[in-house]
C-alpha cells in the first residue's frame, strides 16, 4: 500500500461533511442511500443552515437517518413524512424542512399524503428515493417495480395482468399546480452525483423564497434486494430503470 505523503504540500479538497455524524451507516455495502444522506448534509454545510433545518425521516431503509444527520429530525409514521413536514413548516415557516422517503413509503402507503401535499403547494423539499423494491422488509414488489422484474413476492416477474403497470408518481405529481420544481436524478456515477447536489442546492434556495413544493426523485440501487453485487446493480439500473424513469428536469420554474 502507498501511504507516504507530505501533507504540507497537499491541500484538502474533499472530506466528509461536518454535519454528518461519525456513526457508521447501517446500509448494505454499495447502497445509494449513503450518498444521498451525504449530499443533503453537504448542501446544509455549504448553505450554513444546520440550526435552521428540520428533516423528516421515513419508515424504510433510511429509518435510522436521524443517527447520521446532525440536525433536528422527526421520525414519521409509514407514508406520512410529507404530512409531518407540512405541520413542521406551518408552525416554523422560517425553517428549512425536507422529507425523505422511499418508493414503498411515498408511492404506495403514502400516495394520498404525497399528492395532497404537492397539491397544496407546501413550501417543503420532498426527496423520493426510488429503487423499485421494498428494501428493508426483504425485497417485496413495490408500485414502482418494473414489468417482468423478479422480487420475493413476484418470483416469476411482475405481470401486467396480476399487478398492473409501474407507477410513475413523479410525472403524475408534476402535473399538479402546487409543484414548483420537479426533477429526477440518480447516484450511480460521479457526474450524476454532482447534478443531484446542484438540484438539492436549488431546492433549498427556492424554499427560502417561498416558491412551492420541490420534488426530487433519485433513482437508486438496492444490491441486497435485487440479489446482485453493487457493481452489477449499477449496471442493471442503467440498463433497465433509467429507460423507464428517464433522468432530467420534469418541471422547471418559468422565468417571469
Amino acid at each position, binding site marked *: *500500500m*502507498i*501511504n*507516504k*505523503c*507530505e*501533507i504540507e*504540500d*497537499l*491541500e*484538502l*479538497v*474533499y*472530506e*466528509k*461533511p461536518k454535519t*454528518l455524524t461519525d456513526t*457508521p*451507516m447501517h*446500509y448494505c*455495502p*454499495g*447502497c*445509494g*442511500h*449513503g*450518498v444521498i444522506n*451525504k449530499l443533503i448534509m453537504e448542501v446544509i454545510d455549504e448553505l450554513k443552515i444546520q440550526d435552521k433545518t428540520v428533516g423528516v425521516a421515513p419508515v424504510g431503509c433510511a429509518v435510522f437517518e436521524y443517527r447520521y444527520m446532525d440536525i433536528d429530525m422527526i421520525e414519521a409514521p409509514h407514508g406520512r413524512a410529507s404530512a409531518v413536514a407540512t405541520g413542521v413548516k406551518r408552525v416554523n415557516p422560517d425553517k428549512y424542512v425536507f422529507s425523505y422517503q422511499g418508493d414503498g413509503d411515498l408511492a404506495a402507503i403514502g400516495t394520498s399524503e404525497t399528492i395532497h401535499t404537492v397539491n397544496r403547494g407546501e413550501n417543503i423539499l420532498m426527496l423520493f428515493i426510488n429503487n423499485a423494491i421494498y428494501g428493508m422488509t426483504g425485497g417485496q414488489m413495490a408500485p414502482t417495480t418494473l414489468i417482468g422484474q423478479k422480487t420475493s413476492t413476484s418470483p416469476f416477474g411482475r405481470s401486467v395482468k396480476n399487478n398492473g403497470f409501474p407507477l410513475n408518481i413523479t410525472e403524475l405529481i408534476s402535473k399538479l399546480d402546487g409543484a414548483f420544481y420537479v426533477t429526477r436524478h440518480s*447516484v*450511480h*456515477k*460521479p457526474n450524476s*452525483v*454532482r447534478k443531484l447536489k446542484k438540484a438539492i442546492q436549488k431546492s433549498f434556495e427556492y424554499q427560502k423564497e417561498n416558491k412551492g413544493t420541490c420534488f426530487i426523485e433519485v433513482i437508486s440501487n438496492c*444490491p441486497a434486494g435485487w440479489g446482485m*453485487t*453493487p*457493481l452489477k446493480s*449499477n449496471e442493471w439500473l442503467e440498463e433497465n430503470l433509467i429507460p423507464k424513469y428517464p433522468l432530467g428536469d420534469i418541471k422547471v420554474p418559468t422565468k417571469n
Partner: protein
Amino acid sequence: MIRGTIKVDTEICKGCELCITACPQKSLGLSNNINSHGFKYVELIQDNCTGCINCALVCPDSAITVYRQSKNSIKQNKKVTV
C-alpha cells in the same frame, strides 16, 4: 501532472468497489486485509492519483478524504512525494 492522494477510513469502508470503477486513473484496488467488521477495504494500488474526488463522491459511507497538490506548489513546479 497534478498529484493527489486519498485517505481511506478502513473501519468504515465496506468494500463495495464503487470507487474502484469510478476512478478514471484506475489507481484503487481492494486490499487483502480485512477490517474489524470483516470487510475488505479499498486502498491506493498505484501512485497516479490526481485528486479528482470521483471516488469520494460515489462512496456511500463517506470513507474517503481527498488531498491534492496545492496551487502554490504547481506554480513553483515543486515535486510532491505522494
